[in-house]
């Protein structure tokens, strides 16, 4: 559970620090005059969708931190752990997911410039690469099965299947948001109106790329 505890400790430290900054020297029992300023207490940049995404990413991080903890604990608990060979296709898939992330970053920047044509292209490349990545992961499963590394044969195999499936499921969820954005674009919505959605997609893809890199590194190193 060390991995999860470190993640939670960092999260709690951030939360406690933020709360401390909000509560230090505050005397809640003192009423405030009507003439006193009531400043907006939420920074302009912290929009509800952005904060919502950050909270959701914390939840997803918790899911993966716990799965990684389980991976490490199961590896240590039994003597039956046999590392499996890493299919080269995983490297290719990683490159494709990186491309998807770069394309969505590009989409974010062209949405700011209100460039409709470029936005459509960037989103299509981003979504297309993601579909290719998921298909590639499925191919990896097929290759492993063909080589006799079945999910049930060994916990190391089972965890690789589980981790890739969990990661792909989160990407599929992202593709729902991506499809919604594409649909709105197809119906003629102005790129500037889609900026927030594109931004959230880009951030989510970057996050899932980072998660994949961690998972891949874990599999490579154990």
């Amino acid at each position, binding site marked *: 559970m060390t991995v999860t505890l470190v993640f939670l400790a960092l999260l709690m430290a951030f939360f406690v620090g933020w709360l401390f900054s909000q509560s230090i020297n505050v005397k809640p029992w003192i009423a405030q005059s009507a003439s006193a300023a009531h400043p907006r207490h939420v920074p302009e940049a*912290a929009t509800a969708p952005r904060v919502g995404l950050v909270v959701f990413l914390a939840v997803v991080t918790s899911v993966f931190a*716990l799965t990684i903890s389980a991976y490490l604990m199961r590896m240590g608990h039994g003597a039956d752990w046999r590392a499996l060979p890493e299919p080269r296709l995983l490297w290719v898939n990683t490159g494709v997911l990186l491309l998807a992330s770069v394309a969505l970053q590009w989409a974010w920047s062209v949405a700011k410039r209100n460039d409709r044509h470029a936005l459509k292209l960037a989103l299509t490349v981003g979504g297309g690469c993601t579909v290719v990545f998921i298909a590639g992961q499925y191919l990896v499963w097929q290759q492993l099965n063909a080589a006799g590394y079945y999910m049930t044969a060994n916990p190391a195999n089972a965890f690789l299947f589980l981790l890739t499936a969990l990661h792909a499921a989160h990407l599929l969820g992202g593709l729902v948001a991506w499809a919604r954005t594409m649909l709105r674009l197809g119906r003629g919505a102005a790129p500037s109106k889609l900026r927030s959605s594109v931004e959230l997609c880009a951030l989510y893809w970057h996050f899932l790329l980072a998660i994949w890199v961690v998972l891949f590194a874990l599999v490579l190193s154990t």
Partner: protein
Amino acid sequence: MAEIGHDAVSYAPPAEVGEMELVHPKTFIGKYIWSQDAKVIAIQYGITATAIGLVALALSLVMRLQLGFPNTFSLIDPSSYLQAVTMHGMIMVVYLLTALFLGGFGNYLIPLMCGARDMAFPYINMLSYWIYLFSVLLLVAGFFVPGGPSGAGWTLYPPQAISPGTPGSDGGIILMLVSLAFFIIGFTMGGLNYVVTVLQARTRGMTLMRLPLTVWGIFMATVLALLAFPALLVAALMMLCDRLLGTSFFMPDMLAAGGQAGHEGGSPLLFQHLFWFFGHPEVYIVALPAFGIVSDLLATHARRNIFGYRMMVWAIVAIGALSFVVWAHHMYVSGMNPYFGFLFATTTLIIAVPTAIKVYNWVLTLWHGNIRLTVPMHFAIAFIFTFVNGGLSGLFLGNVTVDVPLSDTYFVVGHFHMVMAVAPILVVFGAIYHWYPKITGRMLNDTLGKIHFWVTFLGTYAIYYPMHYLGFEGVPRRYFAYGETAFISDSVQTMNAGISIAAFIVGLTQLVFLFNLAWSFYRGREAGPNPWEATTLEWQTPHTPPRHGNFGDELPVVYRWAYDYSVPGAKQDFIPQNVPPEEVEMIDSPGRNARP
């Protein structure tokens, strides 16, 4: 105590935060079925959770029939007994208490108390409820599949939970695991709303340190749930893989039903770690909203500001953080390294410190208060007693050396029912009596409420206090029948019969409560906007019950905390949060804008 004294020159301009576009459906289905209004969603959560909670209550009575009068009722066999134990526990902890506190009270109170129009993402909030309902239906479907629901105990420990021979290991356990996964997905959707609404949608002047403790409790419980439920999700998915695909995450090499089970090397302990990493924060997911709500009930009905508000907030945060580092105290008998036992016993005892701070502050809030012994106040005071009693027995179980002999006995059953079943349920009742007038516009009947309170309060003590004694005798829990057992004295059976009779009386008394809810809805006394003379924003809405959008044309502006009761010099013994100091009427000052 409020310090009033400012030079008022001009009034604050209209609120500029928290405004949002709302969907205003015209049809009945849009308004009350596929509703995006957090208040309607709250009631949907409340009704569903109560309905499934009544099923769990009925299951507990089935258990008590068997324990009190063994071999009398032929419809209860060992399998159905274990299934009743399992479903009772799972429903009560997850599908009733978590859903009711966060989905029910969270949805109703967060936007109103924060001064928001609605939740931050109303559509996702609506989806949250429907996924919750789907998860409940999946769980209930377990009763109707061959083999029935799971009988593995609510902890679902492998290898037992998915081994042949355990009741419900065919379809019931699969439905339960899938149902839990959906519950967690649905909760995450709701939880995102609760957190973002508290962070983003507070009205002007509603600083974090002016939030009512109810909101603090629900907020922190939601944070815990968002971070802890993934452990249950991961465990459920891995167990589903073991059950359906034949993997060996948790399943060791073993013989089952006379043959090789087909698994190899799995670690049941890994499941226990994951389960309790969720399971212990779950205690506080239920307790923290109760802490918050009871703080507000006490302050309102004792006409006193809550004692040590900032300490109360920090205690909630500290309890939340510490709840993640005590999980292994549920596993003292799993053969863990004694040093780990010492570590977890220490963290367990440390968590008693912020908890004790809260208890002292509740008692000090009552001290010299102008206590109004309303029905909600009865329940709030009863909560303090019950929580202290349940907490004290927790100190025994938190210590390894005392826990080992008491583990898996009725002492444990008595402890956790007092601390996380009866105590939070008392708060649920108190909260319903308190906010029912706002939700429906009518008061609940006082006499019926007091009958409900006294029978429930005394009755639950008649049920759970003797269980501690049974535990000292060494009576093990989750047993269908004890037969001829040398170490269990004859008096145990007499006591079990008494407990069962008390359980039936308490169970039937809940019908009085349900009748009161229904009767008062049509015949109850008109409540008016603020029958308890409370300060928080939900009592300051222009309409009762509040309409969609909560606050009419303009959002309120907040000038003070939620606890300005019995302010010296003020004419009324409460000053609502949205009243500026310049408008407070003072004694001997006939006009407004008076300063002390």
